């Protein structure tokens, strides 16, 4: 256990930023969701790292991580279903072209 906490935090910050880049720069809506998954994973690494380094006997970090798993699963389920539905109606998954609500 000779890895300092800062390494984990830097790693998860980097993962978060890569995910953010994906969300902001991708055209394909499915790929945007992939970016969001990366960000959620970065959050989870942080939660577990804090649990391990700050309060191993208090389980809150792990319980939060469990909830993040549930949220990630529901987000993917609904997000992808929306994308499929949009694709069926409008024949596109490019996020820029889904602009019915735009003035």
């Amino acid at each position, binding site marked *: 256990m000779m890895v*300092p906490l*800062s390494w984990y935090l830097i*790693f998860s910050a980097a993962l978060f930023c890569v995910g953010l880049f994906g969300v902001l*720069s991708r055209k394909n809506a*499915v790929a945007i969701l992939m970016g969001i*998954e*990366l960000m959620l994973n970065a959050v989870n690494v942080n939660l577990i790292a804090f649990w391990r380094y700050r309060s191993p006997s208090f389980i809150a970090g*792990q319980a939060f991580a*469990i909830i993040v798993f549930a949220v990630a699963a529901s987000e993917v389920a609904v997000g*992808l279903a929306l994308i499929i539905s949009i694709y069926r109606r409008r024949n596109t998954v490019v996020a820029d072209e889904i602009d019915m609500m735009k003035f």
Partner: protein
Amino acid sequence: MTPMQIIFILTAAATLSAAVLVVTTRNIIHAALWLIVSLFGVAVFYVLLNAGFFAVVQVVIYIGAIAILFIFAVMLTRRLMSDSGPQSNTNWWLAAVISVLLFVGLIWMLSSWRGVTGEPPVLKSNIDTIGLLGRALVSPDGFVLPFELASVLLVAALIGAIYVAWERK
């Protein structure tokens, strides 16, 4: 350099390069496969953090279910998405600048915090984290409400997603 640190660095490098490929590669199925590699790397981190349960849950949920769902969704929306041509939008450079700025900001913030260094407390050898977690998740002074709410959330997500994706005949 202890073996642990070497493992950490190797895994971090692999995970981050896979993540970069997820957000840059043109072929969207390849992006999904790289996502799996990246998620697997995160599972290794959970092992390094003595959270074996989460490592396995990561593999079961993310690789076994979410990645499959992604691949299915790509197949369902395939017809018009050709792999050639740019997959990034026109202001990707702005996204890159924002991401790098955020990263620099986070590092700056971390470096000004005292708690960031320091050894992890030694885990007691008889500590049963899964048992603790199990008890915390269902005890009324623990997380029973979020736990049941997560279940309800998943039910809502399932029904909503089915309603949205269902092909009416």
